[in-house]
C-alpha cells in the first residue's frame, strides 16, 4: 500500500494528497506523471506530479473527481493508501533539465495553468526559481472556488496573475485573455507552457501561434499501462503518431491535432458515466447502466 500522509480539499472536487512512494520520489522530475490505482477494482489513473520530497520519499498529487475510481480515491483518508502507485512516467520537461540550463536561461517564459493544470506547472516553476530563472505564471479557472495553490505559486513565480472567467477573483477573463492583456501592456515572451484541459490548451495555442510564441503543452489522453504497451494514448503531432506516455507528455502545441485528441479523450464517456451511475446507486443499483442487465 502507498500511504497517504497529507490530504487537503482544495475545492469542491479537487483534492491534494502527499503519498509515500520512495522510488518515484527518488527519480521524478518536473513534467512527469504517475499512475495510481485505488483498489483491486480500480482503474489505472494517470495523475500529474505537483511536488516531491526526495528525503521524505513523498509525492504530492492533485486529483479531481471524474469517474468511479477517482471518487473512491478522494474518499481515502490520511493513514489509508492506494493499492498501486507507479512512476515516474513520461519524459521530464525540457525546460527543467540541467543539460538545457543555458538555453533555458535565455528564454522569456510564461506558464498558463488551467484548472488542475496548476499542479504540473508548479514543480516546473519551482525548479526554474531554484535555478535562478524568472517566469511569469497565469492561473486561470472558471471561478474563485476552483483556484488553488496561489500562495505556493506566488513564492516561486516571478510574476503571478490570477484569472477567472466570471471575474470572481483577479483578472476578469480566461488565461488566454490575460496573456493577451500582458502582451498588450508590452510584456515579451518567447516560450509558453500551457497545461490544463485540452480545450484550454487548444485556445492558448491558437493565440500563441498568432503572437509567435513557441508553445509547449502537456497532453493528458486516455492511458492504460502508461509504459508504451497499449497505444491508447496515441495522438497526431505534425504528421507523426506519438504515444503520450513514452514520447510525451509534452509536445509542441502548435503541431498537436487538438480536435482529434479531444474526440479521443471522450471515447469512454458513456461507459464511464454508466460506471459512475452504478457507483452512486450502490446496492440500490438495478440497471440503467447498460452493463449489468438488471433492467432487462
Amino acid at each position, binding site marked *: 500500500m502507498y500511504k497517504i500522509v497529507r490530504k487537503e480539499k482544495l475545492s469542491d472536487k479537487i483534492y491534494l494528497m502527499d503519498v509515500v512512494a520512495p*522510488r*518515484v520520489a*527518488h*527519480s521524478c522530475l518536473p513534467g512527469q506523471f504517475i499512475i495510481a*490505482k485505488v483498489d483491486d*477494482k*480500480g*482503474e*489505472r489513473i494517470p495523475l500529474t506530479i505537483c511536488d516531491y520530497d526526495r528525503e521524505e520519499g513523498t509525492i504530492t498529487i492533485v486529483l479531481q473527481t471524474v*469517474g*468511479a*475510481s477517482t471518487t473512491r480515491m478522494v474518499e481515502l483518508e490520511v493513514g489509508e493508501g492506494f*493499492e*498501486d*502507485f*507507479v*512512476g*515516474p*512516467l513520461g519524459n521530464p520537461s525540457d525546460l527543467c533539465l540541467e543539460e538545457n540550463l543555458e538555453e533555458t536561461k535565455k528564454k522569456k517564459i510564461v506558464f498558463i495553468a488551467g484548472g488542475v493544470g496548476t499542479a504540473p506547472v508548479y514543480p516546473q516553476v519551482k525548479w526554474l526559481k531554484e535555478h535562478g530563472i524568472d517566469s511569469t505564471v497565469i492561473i486561470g479557472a472558471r471561478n474563485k472556488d476552483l483556484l488553488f495553490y496561489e500562495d505556493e505559486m506566488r513564492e516561486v513565480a516571478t510574476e503571478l496573475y490570477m484569472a477567472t472567467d466570471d471575474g470572481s477573483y483577479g483578472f476578469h477573463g480566461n488565461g488566454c485573455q490575460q496573456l493577451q492583456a500582458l502582451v498588450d501592456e508590452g510584456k515579451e515572451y518567447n516560450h509558453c507552457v500551457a497545461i490544463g484541459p485540452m480545450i484550454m490548451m487548444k485556445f492558448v495555442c491558437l493565440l500563441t501561434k498568432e503572437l509567435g510564441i513557441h508553445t509547449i503543452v502537456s497532453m493528458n489522453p486516455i492511458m*492504460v*499501462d502508461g*509504459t*508504451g*504497451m*497499449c*497505444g*491508447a494514448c*496515441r*495522438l*497526431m503531432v505534425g504528421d507523426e*503518431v506519438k*504515444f503520450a506516455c*513514452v514520447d510525451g507528455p509534452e509536445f509542441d502545441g502548435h503541431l498537436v491535432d487538438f480536435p*482529434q485528441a479531444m*474526440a*479521443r479523450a*471522450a*471515447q*469512454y464517456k458513456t*461507459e*464511464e458515466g454508466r*460506471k459512475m451511475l*452504478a457507483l452512486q446507486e450502490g446496492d440500490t443499483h438495478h440497471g440503467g447502466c447498460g*452493463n*449489468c442487465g438488471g433492467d432487462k
Partner: protein
Amino acid sequence: MAVDVLVKVPISEQDPKVRAKNFDEVCLGYTKEEAMAEASRCINCKNAKCITGCPVSINIPAFIEQVKDGNFEKAYEIISESSALPAVCGRVCPQESQCEGKCIRGFKGDPISIGKLERFVADWACENGIKPKANPNKNGHKVAVIGAGPAGLTCAGDLAKEGFEVTIFEALHEAGGVLVYGIPEFRLPKDDVVAKEVENVKNLGVKIETNVIVGKSITIDELIEEENFEAVFIGSGAGLPRFMGIPGEQAMGVFSANEFLTRNNLMKAFKDYDTPIWRGKKVVVVGGGNVAMDAARTALRLGAEVHVVYRRSEAELPARVEEVHHAKEEGVIFDLLQNPTEILTDDEGWVNGIRIIKMELGEPDESGRRRPVEIPGSEYEIEADTVIMSLGTSPNPLISSTTKGLEVNKRGCIIAREDTGATSKDGVYAGGDAVTGAATVILAMGAGKQAAKGIMEHFK
C-alpha cells in the same frame, strides 16, 4: 479405460455455443483416468525427440511414465526440474510445432497429448497443495530480473533454485506479464493458474516488487551501483503496438489488440471493475496471430459479431491451429486474403466501416511464405463500429535508452547471445520478446532458462 494407441484420448471442452458467451476456460482438462490412459500411449522412446522439441527440455517420457502409473507427484517433480510454469505451458505452448510435433507416435496416428498431460500434472499438484521447494542454501549473490513475465519468472526461478537472491521488478501492478495482460481468462485462468504459478516462483525464494519501471523509477546502472545487484536479466517483453499507417487509424473505435486485451484481462473490464471497454456490435480484427485470435474471441464474448481480416490464406495464419479452430467453432468469421486500406468514420469521428482490398498469393518472400499481392479493383466496404489492430509490436525504448553500453539492433531489439543471454554490457543479460520481438511464452521461457545458465557461469 480402453485405449486405441493410435488415437489420443479426447479432452472435454465447454460447448462452443455456451462458451462464446462466457469467460470461463474453454478446455476442461483430463480426469485422472483419462490422463493415465493417454499416458499409456507413450512408447517411452530411448532417444526421445519430444525433449529436443521443448524449449526448456522437460524430460517428457519420464514424467509421462509416472503419469501412466498414477505417480502424479513424482511427475510434477520431474517437470519442475525444467519448468517453473507447467500449468501455463500446458495451456498455451504451441505443442503441435514443438514436443508433439516431434512425437514418434505421431508418425502413425495422433501424437501423445503432451501439453494436456503437463497441464493435468500441474493442476493436480496445485489442487493437492504440492509446491516446488526453496533451496535453503544461499550463495550470497544478488540478481535483479526486469519483468515478471514468462522469461523473467523462469530465469528468476532457475536462479533461486541455485541459491541466488533474486528480485523481480515488474512495471505493472500484477506479476505475470503477457500471461495476465495479454492471454484471456478463457484460455489461461488468472487466479487459479497464473497467480498460483507466480506464487510457486515466490515460494522458491524470489522477491517480486511490482510498480517499478526500470528505466524510469530506477535505471539498470542504479540497480548495480546503488542497490548492489551483481547481475541483471532483462525480460521486459515486447513494446509499442504497431499500426498500419492507413487513413482513419486514429478514429474512435480503433484499438490496438494490446489495449483491448489489457483492458479486458489485466483490468478485468468484462467483470464489474472500473476500467471501461468498448463493446462493439461489429468488430473487425486485423491480423492472424495468436493475439488476433485472443482479441477476436474476447470481442465475441463481449457480444459482437467478429471478423478476422488477414492478408494471406488460412495456411499462413501464424496463430496456433487449436486457436483458429476454437475461434471458428465459437462463430468468429474469417475474411482471408483481404487487407484493409482505409478506416471509415462518421461525422463525429467514430468508426462506421472499413474499406478492404482482396489479395492473392504471389511468389514466396524472405520468410518463405507466399507474398500477398493486391487484386486491382477488388476494393469493397463493410460496416463496422470497431477495429482492433493486431499487427505485432516494436521494442519499447525505456530500458535501452537509459542503459549505458547496452546495444540494440536496427529494429531496436536488445542484442543478446542465444546460448547465454549475455548482452554487450558486462553482467547484463536479456531474453524473450525484448530480444526477439514478439514471439511465444515458451520461447521466452527458454531464453530465460539459457540466461539463468549464463548468469550461473558468470559467477563461476
